């Protein structure tokens, strides 16, 4: 039966996430934006709270770690499911409504955990599960073109008892890279063999071969640290390679890329949360200014601000439902690569557009630091960039619709 409402069983989770967003995120938003690179101590307390919630089950999966395959549930599934992908999405929307910068630096909830969840084996899940993991993909010369990465991983079996991979290269834009416990590093086993040779490797943050070069100063999400690393003869146990060590030209890269089918709806969800914050605050300010929004009236039969508000809200609704669709498909084991990219493309551009229009609608109040609108408008832009830019999403969507390979549509 067609139903696009938020499932009842997640109402409690959403309510708890909303409380965290209000009490902890919102009240620290401005401070953490101003004090870039100072660790928000409040998050340690939050981490304890979240852990408590996880034990209670209510916020389980409110971070990125919950997406992908539900581990342990092997029984055959019949009928419609609303599972961990939907739960994670709903939690992230609420937390991002609070503050997306703080969400991104929430202990143990990084996107790296999604990569681990997607490809790790049982033994690795045991070692790495529950830890704070960051993702290191981008390099100075390889951004959207992640198949072009140069960081190498060489197997060293000189000590048969302790075979190791030796990583060398440079990684930039590692979200939560300084604060995380683990860094999932993308590196190539053989640069001659192209994308099939690209694998992901888990590196402990305190590995001496992982050298922090600097922390970025950014337009927004300043509460979240963005680290640049140099990997210099960084030695890790052979068992830290995630997935299969075989170079399979047929599907190798696709395996790593699969992670994105699960994480893109989450980033879309962040955009939806930030945009909702903008819309709600703008509506309050417009209402105080005497603007009435009547959903029944045609666009031209009400004041322009009300009409513009409904237009923004309609694109927001489309973004939100596209994202719910992608998460729902993941929960129901339907291939969702197309829908995940559609959601990310629509939500990323829509949220940026909404945030900037809300600033403009609210005038100097929207532009000034007395409100959070200007901060949200800075924060939101990253969501149309990371986890695949707008243009990368459109490429993915277009290739699928037109039946083209990446060589045929560049």
């Amino acid at each position, binding site marked *: *039966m*067609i*139903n*696009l*409402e*938020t*499932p*009842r*069983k997640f109402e409690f989770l959403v309510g708890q996430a909303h409380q965290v967003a209000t009490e902890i995120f919102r009240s620290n938003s401005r401070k953490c934006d101003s004090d870039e690179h100072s660790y928000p101590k409040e998050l340690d307390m939050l981490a304890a709270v979240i852990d408590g919630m996880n034990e209670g089950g209510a916020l389980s999966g409110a971070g990125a770690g919950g997406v992908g395959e539900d581990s342990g549930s092997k029984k055959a599934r019949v009928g*419609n*499911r*609303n599972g961990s992908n*939907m739960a994670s999405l709903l939690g992230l929307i609420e937390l991002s409504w609070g503050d997306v910068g703080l969400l991104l630096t929430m202990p143990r909830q990084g996107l790296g955990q999604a990569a681990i969840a997607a490809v790790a084996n049982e033994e690795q899940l045991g070692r790495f599960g529950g830890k704070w993991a960051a993702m290191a993909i981008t390099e100075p010369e390889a951004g959207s073109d992640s198949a072009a990465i140069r960081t190498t991983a060489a197997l060293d079996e000189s000590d048969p008892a302790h075979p190791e991979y030796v990583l060398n290269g440079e990684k930039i834009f590692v979200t939560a890279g300084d604060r995380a416990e683990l860094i999932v590093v993308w590196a190539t086993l053989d640069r001659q063999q192209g994308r099939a040779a690209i694998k992901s490797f888990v590196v402990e943050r305190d590995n001496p071969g992982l050298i922090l070069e600097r922390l970025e100063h950014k337009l927004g999400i300043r509460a979240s640290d963005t680290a640049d690393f140099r990997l210099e003869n960084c030695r890790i146990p052979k068992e830290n390679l995630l997935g299969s060590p075989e170079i399979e030209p047929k599907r190798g890269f696709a395996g790593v890329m699969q992670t994105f089918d699960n994480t893109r709806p989450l980033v879309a969800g962040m955009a939806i949360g930030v945009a909702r914050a903008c819309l709600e605050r703008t509506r309050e300010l417009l209402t105080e200014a005497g603007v009435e929004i009547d*959903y*029944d*009236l*045609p*666009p*031209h*039969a009400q004041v322009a601000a009300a009409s513009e508000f*409904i*237009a923004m*809200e*309609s*694109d927001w*609704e*489309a*973004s939100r*439902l*596209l994202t*719910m*669709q992608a998460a*729902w498909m993941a929960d129901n084991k339907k291939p969702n690569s197309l*829908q995940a990219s*559609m959601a990310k*493309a*629509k939500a990323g551009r829509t949220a940026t557009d909404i945030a900037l229009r809300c600033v403009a609608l609210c005038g100097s109040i929207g532009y000034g630091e007395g409100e959070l609108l200007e901060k949200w408008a800075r924060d939101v832009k990253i969501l149309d960039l990371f986890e695949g830019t707008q*243009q990368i999403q*459109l*490429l993915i*969507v*277009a*290739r699928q*619709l*037109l*039946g*083209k390979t990446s060589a*045929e*549509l*560049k």
Partner: protein
Amino acid sequence: MAEQNFTERGMAVGLRALNRLASNGLIDRFGLRDPAQRVLHGASKATVRTATRAGRTFAATQKLSKPARQPRAGRSNLFDLTPDEEQQLLRESVRDFALAKLRPAAQAADEACATPDELLGQANELGLTMVGVLEELGGAVAERSAVTTVLMAEALAQGDMGIALACLAPAAVSTALSLWGDADQQATYLPEFVGDNVPAAALVIVEPRPLFNPFELQTKARRTGDGFVLDGVKSLVPRAGDAELFIVAAELIDNDPAHPAPSRPALFIVEPGGTGLAVEPEPAMGIRAAATGRLVFEGTKLPSTALLGDGSRETIAECVQLGRLGWCALAIGTGQAVLDYVIPYVNERKAFGEAISSRQAVAFTVANIAIELDGMRLATYRAASRVDQGAPFAREVSLARRLCSERGMAIGSDGVQLLGGHGYTKEHPVERWYRDLRAAGVMEGALVV
């Protein structure tokens, strides 16, 4: 509950029958007919105003003690995008029908400003007017579902929006009677809509002026001692020249000192043929196959039984909202037609030595059509599912409406753009879809989901 069960009169075709037809190869059966035998009819192309013709006599053959009303399905617990089996079957059958029969007839119907009788007859065989009517009133469904109607309208519009509107216009009236009519009104009019010979009919809201607002009507219905007197002009009425029954929105002005009430928009049942009601053709930019026309009311006398239901503002608000959802469904179906048409075109069309789809400017346009179309669809389904669940839906309808109006029009424009100059000619259907899609932001009423 109704005392009488109209289904006992053996008139129901409807969904259950449709299921049987579909499994027996509905399209094969329709495909056997010779398309050349189509007979065009509809509004005359002449621009003269003519008096409306009286249609059949509507009379209650059986009496209901109280009106039959839709039971609400209640709130569903899980997010779900899968239509139920009956909806899937209906959607597939109607889409097959639309692509096999409507699409090939679309251009001629557009030029003729009329839909062939044969197509209208086939559409009636599909039971379109019965999907919004409960079984106890002789209709096809145990529970009326806005989602089902949306799916059906969307599928039909994939063939052609104008013909889809012509086919669905009577269904708007039967659904309106089913939703808001009192027991007498249901007993009087509904049996004809669930029979073999469904009358042409239209639900009429739009008035010809800029900034039209369906809640501020210039068509006035003044209450008199024994009924109402109607004055005003209505615009873009589908099948205006043929219709045997109208439901017309007008500002109700109560002059009853015993029951003083502010004037308010309300719906009235109007049988054509009396004095003071004229019709004139009003061909437009698009949806021309629906033979749109104007209705001119000049002192038209209506009986006191003409006021539909309780005449409350809630009724007309719901009518407007459900109509907008119908237009969303038509825009989605047409948008899907655009997407399905441009994909093979841009893959096959060569420029600068390669398929134009190899260029991002072209490929991204196609991607954005698909993204916006899916957003329109999901927003519309959500609003419709809220209708079925008895949840408030004014906001959700409004958001779907805005998307389908603006993003839908952009899809129509991109469809022409992707074909370049070829898209501007009648060699391709994209120019018609461009014209049709503008209707989704202009029209009110004419459909009820």
